[in-house]
Structure formats: structure tokens, C-alpha cells
């Protein structure tokens, strides 16, 4: 049997044909970039530049004192023309630095600077990654330097090459086209973590990638390239860990609790760039696809390029889309404005026609249990959605709402077309608020 997670999962139409075989392209630098100060999990950065400043490519333009943050760098050279709240693909509006490109695309002083990663020690590697502002490309945008300094013993590093989201293909292309960097990156990460075992988990609907990487890692025996069963959400990190190692992360736990660290393909490549050449995280791979995009492509994009420009580069819309999504169709966020910028976490731009994304009208749950069968986390999504719609927050907690990874498998499979994930996200927010309120109350009481 193929490696996979045991419970749940669904098989949505993968839609990868649109961009699967499109070689990565790099469009010209845009006239202007909008760089939001919040592109990572953690505290937002504060701009270190002001209107009128001239900045160069790779120059630090935002940072924070908080432990959990990732520095932000200019993605091209030019003049800062605005520091103000601007549209953002994840949070409607966010403080951003707008740079009018001067077209020279000059590197900041001393960049790029070559290093031989083999001579660096762990601390130096981490410092380089931190300086480059690398965050996870898999979606959660967790600062990579934090992830690579776990405070529990770990023994396994896993590269998540599942790319289980339908339509998206940038990880796939990266695995084929940038396998050298991947090989280096994996070794860097393993060195930084001090682990001896590595896995690369790839869904078996990408046989070329499996083949290619098996070849590439021939000389790195401690790394195993694993073909996993094609089943959404194979790429969710808990599922990936189970598929690779058979270990299960307990509810509320982190991968390091079972001795693992999981990183996305793109992250590893970015780490290679950061460590070997000192290049900050200023561009990323993004898939632009969907049945409404004239020419679907895999692109290497500067952070701050707007969706509109990217779509235009791909020939614009072939038909009027019903939805434009940042990310994949299962977990991505639908956009209503196209002047939002590409951020560090933007793995895809998806334009779908009404036929492809019929969500249907929500009806009462008929308790068919399909969602229960589909949930990889062993929850009862139908009950959660009902409790949440009745605002029974304690019940939600009792039924483990916090364990939901919002993968959307339940919603995908529900014949009643219930927006379970939306209910759950609301419930999570409310439960957290209640918890916080209780905490505050307890603290106040303790003070008394």
C-alpha cells in the first residue's frame, strides 16, 4: 500500500492540466510594487523607510522587535512613494510600502554574497535565514528561522512536495526545474536541525517529480523520496508526517512533538538562496491558472506585483470569472479586488468560471456522515456546523473544533452544500475570544 494518512480525505478533480507542463517564466519587473508589512505568521513589521526614500533590491524595509516575525525587503529598486494601508490579499487592508520601480533593479550593497553552506555552523545558517526573511511557502507563512530552531528534540526533516491542492503546480515545477537547489536546501535544513533522516513526500499523481527527485537525491542516502497516495489533504503537515513516519501529532500539538519538522518545497529553495547567496525572500513561485485564465503559467514573481498585472501577463481572462482566488481552490481566499499584491504566501492565483465553482445553496444537514468519513482529523464536522450555527460554543469546544485544520474536505463532500468551514472558523474565533475572556477574568481574580 502506498504511504498516506489513514483516516478521511477526498478526491477532488485535480485541474493540474492547465499549468502542469508550463515551464517557469519570469516576467519583467513591474512599474510599481506594493509590499505589505504583514506577510507572515506573527507580529506585523513596521516600515523602516519613509516616503521619498530610495531603496534597492533586497534592502530591508520592514522589521519588528517581536520574536515571531520575518523581515521584509524591497523586491526591486526605486523610490518609496507611499507608506499607507493598502489592499491585501488576506486581510482587506494592511500597512504597505509602495515602491515606484526605477527599472534598474539594482541589488543592495553586498548582495548577493556567496557562502559555502558546508562551512557554516547551525547558528550562522539560522542567522542567514532570519536575515533573508524566509517564511513557509506552504500557506501558513511561518517564519522559517523559528521553525528550524525547535525547542524539542527532532530526528526527521520532511519536505512537503505533496501539492495536494487542485490546480496548483508551482511546487511540481520547482521540484523538476530547481532540483539542485532543493537537494542543497534539504541538506542545509538537516544540518541546521541536526537530523539524520529526511523525507520528500510527493503525491503519486506527479510521477515525473518522483522520478526526477529520486535521481537527484541518489547521492544523499539519508533522504528518501516517497510517493504518497493522491488524496487531499495529503499535504497537510500532520497528514504528511503520518504518511512518511507513521507518527501522529496529538491534538493541539506541533510537528516537533513527534520529532519532525515539515517544510514546503518553495521554502527549502528559498532557504538555499538565502544561505548560499544571501538573497532575501523577494520573489516566489506562483501558479496562475484556472479555466478563465487565457494562458495559465507558473511564474517567478516579485513580492508586491499586483494580481491584475500578473493576470494581464498571462493574457488576461478568457472569460469572465466568477471567482478569483489567492491560493488553491480548497483553502484559498476568494478575492474581490485585483489590485492586491503577491505576498510571500501566495502560492497561486486561480480564476474559475461559475461552472467550476458552484457552491450550491446551503441546506440543513441530513446527517449523511460523508463529512465524518472525509475529515482527516477525526472530527464530526456536521455537528460542529450545527452547534456553531446555534452559537453553542461550549459544545463546539467539546467536539474539538480547535483541532480542525480547515482543510475543507468536509465541505467538498457535503451533499447539503453546508459551509462547514465558515461555521468552524467563526466558532474557533468565538471560542478563542471566550477563552481569552476567561483567562483575563482568572488573572484579574488572581490579582485580587
Amino acid at each position, binding site marked *: 500500500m502506498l504511504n498516506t494518512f489513514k483516516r478521511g480525505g477526498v478526491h477532488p478533480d485535480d485541474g493540474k492540466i492547465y499549468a502542469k507542463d508550463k515551464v517557469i517564466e519570469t516576467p519583467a519587473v513591474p512599474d510599481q510594487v506594493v509590499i505589505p508589512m504583514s506577510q507572515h505568521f506573527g507580529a506585523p513589521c513596521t516600515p523602516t523607510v519613509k516616503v521619498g526614500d530610495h531603496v534597492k533590491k533586497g534592502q530591508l524595509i520592514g522589521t519588528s522587535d517581536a520574536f515571531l516575525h520575518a523581515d521584509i525587503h524591497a523586491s526591486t529598486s526605486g523610490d518609496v512613494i507611499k507608506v499607507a494601508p493598502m489592499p491585501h490579499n488576506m486581510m482587506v487592508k494592511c500597512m504597505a510600502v509602495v515602491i515606484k520601480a526605477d527599472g534598474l533593479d539594482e541589488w543592495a550593497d553586498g548582495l548577493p554574497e556567496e557562502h559555502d553552506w558546508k562551512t557554516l555552523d547551525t547558528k550562522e545558517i539560522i542567522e542567514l535565514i532570519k536575515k533573508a526573511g524566509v517564511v513557509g511557502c506552504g500557506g501558513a507563512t511561518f517564519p522559517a528561522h523559528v521553525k528550524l530552531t525547535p525547542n524539542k528534540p527532532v530526528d526527521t526533516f520532511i519536505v512537503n512536495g505533496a501539492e495536494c491542492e487542485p490546480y496548483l503546480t508551482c511546487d511540481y515545477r520547482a521540484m523538476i526545474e530547481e532540483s539542485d537547489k532543493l537537494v542543497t536546501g534539504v541538506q542545509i535544513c538537516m544540518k541546521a536541525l541536526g537530523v539524520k533522516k529526511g523525507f520528500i513526500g510527493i503525491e503519486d499523481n506527479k510521477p515525473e517529480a518522483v522520478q526526477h527527485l529520486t535521481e537527484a537525491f541518489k547521492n544523499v542516502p539519508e533522504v528518501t523520496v516517497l510517493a504518497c497516495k493522491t488524496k487531499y489533504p495529503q499535504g497537510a503537515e500532520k497528514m504528511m508526517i503520518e504518511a512518511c513516519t507513521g507518527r501522529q501529532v496529538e491534538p493541539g500539538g506541533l510537528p516537533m512533538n513527534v520529532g519532525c519538522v515539515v517544510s514546503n518545497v518553495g521554502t527549502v529553495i528559498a532557504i538555499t538562496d538565502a544561505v548560499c547567496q544571501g538573497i532575501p525572500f523577494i520573489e516566489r513561485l506562483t501558479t496562475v491558472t484556472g479555466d478563465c485564465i487565457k494562458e495559465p503559467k507558473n511564474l517567478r514573481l516579485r513580492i508586491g506585483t499586483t494580481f491584475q498585472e500578473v493576470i494581464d501577463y498571462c493574457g488576461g481572462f478568457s472569460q469572465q470569472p466568477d471567482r478569483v482566488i489567492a491560493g488553491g481552490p480548497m483553502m484559498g481566499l476568494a478575492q474581490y479586488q485585483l489590485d492586491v499584491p503577491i505576498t510571500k504566501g501566495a502560492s497561486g492565483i486561480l480564476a474559475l468560471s461559475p461552472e467550476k465553482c458552484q457552491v450550491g445553496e446551503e441546506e440543513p444537514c441530513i446527517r449523511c456522515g460523508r463529512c465524518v468519513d472525509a475529515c482527516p482529523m477525526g472530527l464530526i464536522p456536521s455537528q460542529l456546523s*450545527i452547534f456553531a450555527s446555534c452559537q*453553542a460554543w461550549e459544545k463546539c469546544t467539546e467536539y474539538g473544533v480547535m483541532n480542525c485544520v480547515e482543510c475543507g474536505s468536509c465541505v467538498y463532500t457535503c451533499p447539503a452544500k453546508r459551509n462547514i468551514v465558515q461555521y468552524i472558523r467563526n466558532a474557533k474565533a468565538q471560542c478563542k475570544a471566550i477563552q481569552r475572556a476567561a483567562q483575563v477574568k482568572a488573572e484579574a481574580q488572581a490579582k485580587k
Partner: protein
Amino acid sequence: MMEYFTLFVGAVLINNFVLTKFLGLCIFFGVSKNLNASIGMGFAVTSVITMSTVLAWLLYNFVLVPFGLTFLRTISFVVLIASFVQLLEIIIKKQSPTLYNMWGIYLMLIATNCIVLSVPVISVTNEYGFLENLVFAVGSGLGFALALILMASCREKLDFADVPHALKGTPIAFIVAGMLSLAFLGFSGMI
């Protein structure tokens, strides 16, 4: 032996006190809003019925019958049970707060409830012997507990259902009880 078994099963399932004899409905509808409460209540009812039925049986057969005072049945039973339960409650409250919280709190609710009075009354009218009386009492109590727990779990689920406004609360509980008793009819004729 068999007849005791028959009597027991009959009291639990076939002639279930709530669903076919309509006794103890006030608590049945009052307490079935919450599953945990209903479990405590079921336990409390069973034990109180058992104890008070035994006491009432003794009182009836050793005091009332010899003096031809069977017409004092009702009043003496009710005073006996009310006092006994109150005594029990007072003692438990003092002696064991945990036990009190588990089922003591339900005691006063049932002290003057018709199921607790009717079991002894039915038992003496049917002229049960001591052991029969005991089996009957335990069976009736368990039957009540069963119906109560089923009902509570159903109602907890209905809390999240789109029940029409007018039917919310006790009315829909009655309808559910009707369906429960319809289902329990399946056991009829078994004995």
C-alpha cells in the same frame, strides 16, 4: 424465578410507567432537558421508589390490613414517603455532599411525585408478596430511568433542530414522548 423476571421486564419495557401508564410525567418532562440531570434523576427515582415501596409494603401489610384500615392507604403512604425522603435528604446533605450533589438534589423533587406514590399503591392493590414487590419497584424505577434518559438525549438533539416556534419546548417533548411510546408498543404482548 421466571415470574420475577417477567414481572421485571414487564415493568421496565412493556408496561413502562411513563410511556404506557402515564406516571411521573411532571419530572419526565421537567428534567429531561438535560442528559446529565436525567441520569442523576433516573438513579434517584429508582432508589427512592425501591426504598419507599418496601416501607409502604411493610406499613400496609403489618399495620393497615390487620386493623382494616386499607382506606388510610393513600394518606399514610404519602406522609410516610414524604417524611422518609425528607429525612433521607437531610441526612445525605449533612453526611455526604458528593452524594448529595449526585442525586440528593433530586430527592425533594420526587418526594411528592406520582410515580413514587403509585408504585406502592399498585403493588399493594395487586397483592404482591415482599419479593415481587421489590422486583416490581426496581423494575418500575429502571423503566422510568430508561425512558427519561432516552427522552433527554432526544431533546438535547432537538435543541439544535429547527423546531417551529410554537412547538418548541414542552409541546415537541410531548410529541417525542408519543413516538417513544409508539416504539415501545413493539414490546406489547410480549408477556
